């Protein structure tokens, strides 16, 4: 976990002007064992052992040529757990639990598997831009490999059984992290959120469930997992809902440029000026201003490279900063100073 950034989050992909990342996750549980919330420590250990063996026997690749490594979260350092959290590979809850749990992670960090989260298995594939179909194929490939040696809890009527009935059926959650600054600026976001809910989509903040939006970044995901084939779930989200959301944001950007170009220019130039001049900056303010610069870069108002901003968005997070500068302690002045220096150097 010593690398300072993850390939999946710092690259650019299709529709990168609006779509930061896409994710697909499969929730699975082992038949014959209680769900994680009622599992004793020995049962959790047994689930880990079974999954680990299945992972090791999975060819040993995930089908795309990447080896999987095993990270025991109970013995992992706090910084490593925070790194995983900042890379959206584990949930905050999973990072801070005090119980036997693990993460299997492909070497390119596109595919991961939380063991003993809310469900025994949460298989996830993540990629840059609008790439839900590729993510789906990789996650499904891992699931198929594991199903050779593991027996998943399955019900004739309800499909794959999950700890929470909201995930039952396919157990598949498809999500995309979107940058929606123009919709926010034009105060259209509430309307979009309402429309999304009507389409049975959940809208969450930067760090998933219960989190606030940061930098106008929002996660959209399917809320229903039952009653549709995997293909239908995928085509509804990736082929229908996501292009519409991207289109709304692009139209809002055009409208914002036409109606209030000076205000928009002022906002993105101020953000860049702050980042180029600040001597102390918190992670929260850094993300907010980086996202504004991102908008400026996408609209051609600023010369900044999108890839630089993507990388910085991750590097300014507390654990990632402490990899580059081990003396940085979260929240203290030295940390804010190191963050400001890092950004100034990167943005010239």
């Amino acid at each position, binding site marked *: 976990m010593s690398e300072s950034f993850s390939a999946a989050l710092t690259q650019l992909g299709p529709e990168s002007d609006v779509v930061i990342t896409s994710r697909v996750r499969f929730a699975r549980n082992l038949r014959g064992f209680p769900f994680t919330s009622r599992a004793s420590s020995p049962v959790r250990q047994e689930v880990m052992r079974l999954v680990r063996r299945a992972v090791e026997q999975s060819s040993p690749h995930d089908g795309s040529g990447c080896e999987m490594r095993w990270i025991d979260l109970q013995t992992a350092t706090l910084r490593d757990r925070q790194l995983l959290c900042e890379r959206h590979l584990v949930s905050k809850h999973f990072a801070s639990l005090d119980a036997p749990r693990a993460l299997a992670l492909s070497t390119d960090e596109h595919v991961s598997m939380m063991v003993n989260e809310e469900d025994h298995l949460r298989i996830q594939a993540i990629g840059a831009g609008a790439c839900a179909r590729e993510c789906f194929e990789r996650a499904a490939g891992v699931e198929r490999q594991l199903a050779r040696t593991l*027996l998943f809890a399955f019900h004739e009527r309800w499909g794959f059984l999950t700890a929470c009935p909201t995930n039952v059926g396919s157990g598949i959650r498809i999500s995309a992290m979107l940058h929606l600054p123009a919709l926010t600026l034009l105060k259209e976001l509430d309307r979009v959120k309402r429309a999304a809910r009507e389409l049975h989509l959940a809208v969450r903040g930067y760090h998933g469930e219960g989190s606030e939006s940061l930098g106008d970044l929002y996660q959209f995901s399917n809320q229903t997992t039952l009653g549709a084939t995997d293909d239908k779930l995928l085509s509804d989200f990736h082929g229908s809902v996501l292009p519409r959301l991207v289109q709304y944001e692009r139209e809002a950007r055009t409208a914002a440029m036409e109606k209030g170009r000076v205000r928009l220019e002022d906002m993105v130039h101020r953000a860049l000026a702050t980042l180029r001049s600040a001597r102390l900056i918190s992670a929260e303010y850094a993300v907010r201003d980086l996202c504004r610069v991102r908008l400026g870069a996408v609209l051609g108002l600023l010369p900044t490279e999108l890839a630089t901003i993507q990388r910085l968005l991750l590097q300014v997070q507390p654990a990632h900063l402490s990899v580059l500068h081990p003396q940085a302690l979260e929240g203290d002045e030295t940390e804010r100073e190191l963050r400001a220096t890092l950004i100034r150097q990167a943005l010239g």
Partner: protein
Amino acid sequence: MKCDLCNKPAVVHEVIIQGGKSTELHLCAEHAIEKGLAVPTQQPLADILPALGGVVKVEGVIGRSPQQARCTACGCTFADFKKVGSLGCPACYDSFMPMIAQVIERAQAGATAHVGHSPPPSLDAERVQRLRSKLMTELENAIAAEQYERAAQLRDELKALEAAPQVHDE
């Protein structure tokens, strides 16, 4: 045969012997529950639930409220589920019928059944996993009951299972 108290078909037939005198009782599901009598499990309880104000039969116990319904496999109650938002084990889905069906339909925009893919059949894996799960439960019970000799024996059995050849569906 019709219910003694209404015109619905009788599903419960009891012979009550009191003071040396026997009386036959034939009741529909609704009246049987009112009298506290067991209803055959094949009775579609979902059909009569709304009329009963939430009184259901779970695991052979009559008159319990949905909150008290308990999964016999893991001990989780429906109230536990509502409190933590998580079921206890895969068997809870059957134990908490029909309440769980209502929860799912509400959460899943009215969908009532899975239509996606199923896991591939793997009978050997199933046998091994079922056995392993059973041994684990017995081991925990043995440790809880301080039966250490039995626990050691179960641990050896689990180890032997581990050494068994693995199954691939090539």
